[in-house]
């Protein structure tokens, strides 16, 4: 079974193959990257339902455009290598050239991947700190968003979200309605297990933990409806913990609040004072 030692090929073999791969890669990347940027980019989730969602679409577009040349390189490389360097299965085993290392290739690879990674981390951090990207930031957010501000508390419980509007007398509702073109400060908390509030088209996701205040900012744009899901497994009805929320024009929002206040009047006197956190009683003993 021992193979005869490899006879070195002319040095041009290396460069010819490398040039072909390089050219094919550059061509493919040059074609695929703009296509991805202009065609796939605008279609990427979560859509432009809010400033934060639009920011995520931009972020996703950059990332997809960024990985396109990487995928192109690997596709070109593997297609070339797997077709050009196949052994004749019927012939006797022949060894390939004993290449063990190439410091130029290594250094280039390490340098390029390091720069790429640092760029990605820097870009992600910038996008994150710009406006919070709609993610939950805990009780003391580092990416604050100023502007016409409305505070809304999202209270998760097994298995429904309810919402409190502290600026309207601690009004609580079972539906989420937000005014258009407003900066909404969502305070997400839970009364029992861990949930996660996910407003898909607004690009918002924030975990709801008992006894914790988790703030997420979202700057609404025009009127639209959006899907709400629970995104953290929370027990039996996790899969049914969804709803539809609405962004409505400011006048319609005022009217809706008025109507909700009438409905709310009957339990208003029982409500605890608005608080950013509630400590649920574990109620384990007894029975």
């Amino acid at each position, binding site marked *: 079974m021992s193979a005869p030692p490899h006879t070195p090929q002319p040095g041009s073999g290396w460069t010819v193959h490398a040039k072909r791969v390089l050219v094919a890669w550059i061509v493919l990347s040059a074609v695929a990257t703009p296509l991805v940027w202009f065609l796939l980019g605008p279609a990427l989730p979560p859509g432009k339902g809010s400033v934060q969602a639009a920011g995520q679409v931009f972020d996703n577009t950059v990332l997809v455009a960024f990985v396109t040349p990487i995928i192109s390189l690997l596709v070109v490389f593997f297609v070339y290598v797997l077709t050009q360097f196949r052994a004749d299965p019927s012939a006797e085993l022949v060894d390939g050239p004993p290449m063990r290392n190439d410091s130029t290739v290594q250094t280039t690879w390490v340098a390029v991947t390091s720069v790429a990674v640092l760029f990605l981390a820097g870009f992600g951090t910038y996008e994150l700190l710009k406006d919070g990207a709609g993610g939950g930031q805990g009780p003391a957010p580092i990416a604050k968003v100023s502007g016409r501000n409305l505070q809304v508390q999202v209270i998760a419980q097994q298995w429904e979200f309810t919402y409190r509007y502290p600026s309207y007398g601690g009004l609580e509702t079972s539906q989420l309605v937000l005014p258009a073109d407003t900066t909404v400060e969502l305070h997400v908390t839970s009364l029992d297990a861990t949930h996660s509030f996910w407003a898909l088209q607004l690009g918002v996701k924030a975990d709801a933990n008992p006894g914790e205040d988790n703030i997420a900012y979202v700057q609404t744009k025009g009127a639209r409806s959006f899907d709400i899901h629970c995104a953290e497994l929370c027990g039996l009805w996790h899969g*049914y913990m969804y709803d539809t929320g609405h962004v409505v024009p400011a006048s319609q929002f005022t009217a809706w609040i008025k109507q909700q206040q009438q*409905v709310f009047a009957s339990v208003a006197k*029982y409500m605890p004072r608005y608080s950013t956190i509630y400590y649920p*009683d574990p*109620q384990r003993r007894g*029975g």
Partner: protein
Amino acid sequence: MRGTTWKLLGVAVCVAAAGVLIGFYVSALTQENGSPSYSVPVQTSNGHPVVHLTIETVAAVGPKLSPGSPDFVSYLIMEKGQWKRDTVWRVPANATVHVTIYQFDGDSGLRNPYLARPEGIDGNVEMVDGKPLDAIDPADASHTFAVPAYHLIVPLPGVADNAKNQCGYAPCAMSNAHHTITFTFHTGAKGHYRWQCFVPCAAGWLYGFGGPMQTIGYMDGFLNVV
């Protein structure tokens, strides 16, 4: 040749054993946490479907209805004069549903007082022992009947702690202390809608929401609107 026969036999035995185990597994899974479905009888009024649901809530379901977990708190439904622990109910689409609930359990109190207000029912008013109420004291709540997809919630006040002749294990007699709650709602499009209780009433479980509160057939079920 004889070797091959033995091997085939061995493989057949293994395949059969795997089949039996898988069958056992699947059937155990199908039964676990399950509840038979009850088709609620439909009447028609002016060509419009009308159904009546008669339900009771009990503090302990009792060994007769649930030998494995007799201490579970539970909903029961009246089927042909019998109280049954079936929580999956088939009702027609776009129907009027008249609900009567006999409430035998004591209070546990709502964690979120907002849910002490009836919503999603006719007039947003529930009748408790004949009196119309647009809210109950959250501390008095024993259970709620809620279909979140309909934004329907009806809080059920509990029997006072000092009431006489309280019901122990189900089924309860009408002579036991209870409240009678009635209300009406309307089903919409076809689909499977879960219903549940929002009062942390599962004593002994963290946040009162384990055990019967997370097992279909006790405090949870489906409205299968067909």
